[in-house]
């Protein structure tokens, strides 16, 4: 009985804060709404029995990516607090296309048959995920660590001031 209630509450929070992210004029408030949205999505993951992904979401998105965004905003916006124009002239056609996209996606999804399994969801997922990351997925796992290293070095090289 409480599951639909919790789902609709979380879905409302996700959609409302996502709308705030794309419409609010102050970029700093956008970042705060983004953090709120990411937290609500972590709640959605918990509802889907993916507790490890929820923890990774909070650690990596809220803890790293969103804080990085806030740092970048503080480094770049001279105009924070000023009433700058935040949207371009494509608002109406963009909104129209987005509504068409929602309609098309929901229509095609509701006309597709997915074979729903009656199996119980896996328990103790962090253990199972750790085991398969170290056995079946060890090559992608190592590749991702190389990509992270490359991104880190690339970010340092790109953002470094030239000349010193």
């Amino acid at each position, binding site marked *: 009985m409480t599951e639909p209630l919790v789902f609709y509450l979380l879905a409302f929070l996700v959609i409302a804060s*996502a709308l705030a992210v794309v419409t609010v004029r102050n970029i700093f408030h956008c970042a705060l709404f*983004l953090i709120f949205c990411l937290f609500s999505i972590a709640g959605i993951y918990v509802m889907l029995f993916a507790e490890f992904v929820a923890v990774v979401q909070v650690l990596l998105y809220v803890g790293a990516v969103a804080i990085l*965004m806030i740092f970048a905003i503080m480094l770049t916006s001279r105009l924070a607090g000023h009433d700058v124009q935040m949207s371009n002239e494509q608002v109406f056609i963009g909104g129209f296309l987005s509504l068409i996209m929602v309609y098309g996606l929901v229509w095609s999804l509701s006309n597709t048959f997915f074979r*729903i399994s009656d199996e*119980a969801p896996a328990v103790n997922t962090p253990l199972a995920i750790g085991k398969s990351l170290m056995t079946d997925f060890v090559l992608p796992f190592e590749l991702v660590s190389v990509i992270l290293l490359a*991104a880190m070095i690339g970010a340092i090289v790109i953002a470094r001031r030239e000349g010193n």
Partner: protein
Amino acid sequence: MQLMHYLSLAAILFSIGFFGVVTRRNAIAILMSLELMFNAVNINLIAFNRYVTPGDLLGQIFAIFVIVIAAAEAVVGLSIVILIYRHWRGIDVDRINLMKW
């Protein structure tokens, strides 16, 4: 809850992110909208994992890889934004049209 609810939520979230990408002028706001789209994809992956193949964890592992790659993307994107800011004294993407014809 049915699978359809989660898929609809992901579709709405993806479209909101798309709206942000095409309408925002600030490059950092565009990156934030991209993160919304990544999260919509992750909700799809985990919902399918929960309802279609609950026994194995392929969807969750794939979602973790998506999150990690998104973090790498955000790092490189934001450093490019900072570099653009140094050159143009602003990150309004409508003014950065050097590579448009």
